[in-house]
């Protein structure tokens, strides 16, 4: 019988192995377990996994190569383009993505958009689709468009797997992902309330595991993690509470997340892997009979505000960060964006102006997924944390919760 601490360690070790698995061995094992199985790779930030799952494929998040050495990928990109696409090309050109029957490229930015066309040329036998998210600010019109896109994608994927994509299958997948979103929400809530119970390093690798394993399996692990972390919440720390903003696409190295927290800044909210919780609340909320309509309505009416979606409210950008800070009870904001990331960097002046107008302390830096030196971040985050604790929120984390 394992103790809660041992069970937590086992879950984190499982998640970390998956996070570090750049050969997608877990996906290959899943595919090999039964003949006729298929997997679809999904680039950041958001493609609804429910559709892929219902069409009989394993949805797998493709989040680049971390610190993997890039040999072929650099030959495809100029120096002023972010790191993610070059490591994705590296994964593809080195055969690591050969097992995927489909690759989906959402409308995150022009780099990922153009990569969809490159993939058509690099892998002509793979189903490739650019997934254009709805951007118009009239919900009905956008819903019709998005419902049509979902139907198109579902039809195409089902044609590959041979699955009959009916409403029952769609609803079943939607409910699984509703459960998954609810668990992510619970994890985030637990971290907001007791950050020492859910350290960001653990939360992050757990969420990364959710990008590659079947949703059913992840839901079980996440439930167990919530259970054991409640039984063994860890040691209370007196850190500054911060929100991390801008890291929604190319992911920072795990070392950077650890560095921020070890320097005295506890992350209490972030936009890392935001695709897994872009929709707030369940898709199946009883309002729609048609599952695709329900998915479209949920995205258009209850999505989180993020750089990849048009902000119809002229005050929305400036309000966003103060709202995140208020919801999470944070003391300050760290703007952390990947170098050359158009969505994050173009948004930053608006978001930062809103934060500063609200009197929130902020720092900003840029990273790449393969950043290997963390000293400058440690110093910056450490100074930031000291400043907050000394001058802004001197009661300390325990006193504030």
């Amino acid at each position, binding site marked *: 019988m394992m103790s809660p601490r041992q069970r937590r360690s086992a879950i984190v070790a499982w998640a970390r192995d998956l996070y570090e698995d750049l050969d997608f061995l877990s996906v290959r094992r899943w595919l090999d377990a039964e003949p006729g199985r298929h997997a679809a790779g999904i680039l950041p930030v958001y493609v609804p996994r429910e559709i892929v799952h219902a069409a009989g494929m394993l949805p797998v998040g493709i989040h680049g190569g971390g610190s993997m050495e890039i040999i072929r990928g650099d030959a495809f*990109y*100029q120096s002023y383009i972010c790191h993610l696409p070059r490591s994705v090309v590296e994964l593809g050109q080195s055969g690591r993505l050969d097992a995927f029957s489909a690759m989906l490229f959402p*409308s995150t930015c022009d780099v990922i958009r153009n990569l969809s066309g*490159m993939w058509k*040329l690099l892998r002509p036998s793979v189903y490739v689709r*650019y997934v254009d998210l709805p951007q118009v600010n009239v919900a009905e019109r956008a819903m019709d*468009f998005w419902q049509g896109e979902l139907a198109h994608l579902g039809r195409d994927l089902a044609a590959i797997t041979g699955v009959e994509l009916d409403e029952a299958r769609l609803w079943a997948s939607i409910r699984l992902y509703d459960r998954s979103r609810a668990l992510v929400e619970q994890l985030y809530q637990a971290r907001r309330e007791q950050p020492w119970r859910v350290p960001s390093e653990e939360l992050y690798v757990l969420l990364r595991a959710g990008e590659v394993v079947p949703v059913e399996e992840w839901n079980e692990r996440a439930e167990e993690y919530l259970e054991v972390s409640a039984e063994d919440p860890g040691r209370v720390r007196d850190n500054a509470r911060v929100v991390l903003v801008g890291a929604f696409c190319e992911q920072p190295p795990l070392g950077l997340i650890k560095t921020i927290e070890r320097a005295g800044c506890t992350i209490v909210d972030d936009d890392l892997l935001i695709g897994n919780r872009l929709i707030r609340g369940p898709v199946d909320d009883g309002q729609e009979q048609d599952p695709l309509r329900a998915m479209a309505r949920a995205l258009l009416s209850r999505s989180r505000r993020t750089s990849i979606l048009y902000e119809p409210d002229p005050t929305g950008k400036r309000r966003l960060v103060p709202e995140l800070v208020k919801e999470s009870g944070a003391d300050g904001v760290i703007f952390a964006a990947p*170098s050359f990331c158009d969505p994050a960097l*173009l948004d930053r002046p608006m978001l930062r102006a809103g934060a500063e107008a609200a009197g929130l302390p902020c720092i900003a830096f840029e990273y790449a997924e393969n950043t290997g030196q963390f000293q400058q971040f440690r110093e910056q985050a450490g100074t930031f944390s000291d400043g907050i604790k000394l001058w802004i929120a001197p009661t300390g984390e325990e006193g504030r919760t």
Partner: protein
Amino acid sequence: MNKDRSMLLQKEMIARHFDRLEAAPQTGEKVVYTFVPGNLTELIRSFGALPLLPEINALQSGMRGKSRAYIAEAEKAGHSADVCTYVKADIGMMMSGNIGPTGTRLPPPDLLLLSYTGCYTFMKWFELLREQYDCPTVFLQVPYQGDGSLLPEHREYIVRQLREDVIPALERVTGRPYDEDKLREMLALSAKAEDDLVAVLHAAKQRPSPIDSYFGGVYYIGPIFSAFRGTPEGVEYYEALREEVEQRLADGEGPETPSGRLDDQQFRLVVEGPPNWTSFNEFWQMFSDEGAVVVASTYTKVGGTYDFGFRHDPSDPLGTLADYCGGCYTNHNLPGRIDMLVQYVKEYQADGFLINSVKSCNSFSAGQLMILREVEKRTGIPGGFIESDLVDPRYFSAANIKNRLESYFQMLRERRRAGVGAAGPVQQGSTP
């Protein structure tokens, strides 16, 4: 550099347009800010409103040596060094008093018409501008041609947005009702000007080419990509331009360039990517000094791919606007862009293919190294690759670019000498 009559005509047209814009707050004419790709000039003007295009202002700021200071102003205000310099030049200009390229004050917008076509940054650009102006924004989403064509459901989506969002927004701002007959009349004028523009572009198939389709081409597309599509002035300009080019063709003359008239054309090139604007003439001269003429370019298709057959169709006013928006160059997927380039190389019998990769435009630049290899593979002609920027002079390194171009032209010469993949010495008066 000698100016063609059409260039002078265009200069007058643009000056008049900016005078009207400056006077708009007094005359009551409404001003609509929008973008070049997917611009709805006829629709805007059918409501009596005036279009104003921030990219044009930014590039003009670059050509007039003002963008450096504007970009610095924007960066001081917190804009990243790594994002689109058009955006920063525009925002910097606004922060510096909003004096436009012709020296007149630009009016604030009455409407921001965000035609979201082929460029992610457009969305952020107007989210940023919107913070400075107290006016409505209307969003037109133009789906990307991810699968190589504008799907019927996407066309219908655009038409529906035009009918239900954009037109009502224009009605509210201008106080005028939608007049479809007027729109049809303007679309007919557009098609006429487009015919003339295509005749001009196709003239580059001849030897010597009477035009430079990149450096000269950006002048040729000026009126039709900006405020004059669908206007009698636009038609008049393109008639004059066509006449001028046809005369040069008949006389066996090349285009005017910074090195003089380029009759002796040593290299025929296809160019992909926008030009650098801050050292435009210097950049052009690096080509013309070597006797290189650009016979086809993709940048001149960002506001419409007319040479592939598209014409505005007055019989289906909103449908044709949807087709137009969907077909702009950067709304085509990468394989589609490669197909176009390959077709250009073959149809225009190019000796070389060159990419000017600009730092601040991911819509163009991401994937260009793959474009280079694919075009080389499919045409057998060698590609060249240079890097610069749109309007940030810090990223135009004249010595490096000149060095690369000289090496590239030297390589083309050697290939020709060796009889490898060369189009042969250029004979005046011959046709391919």
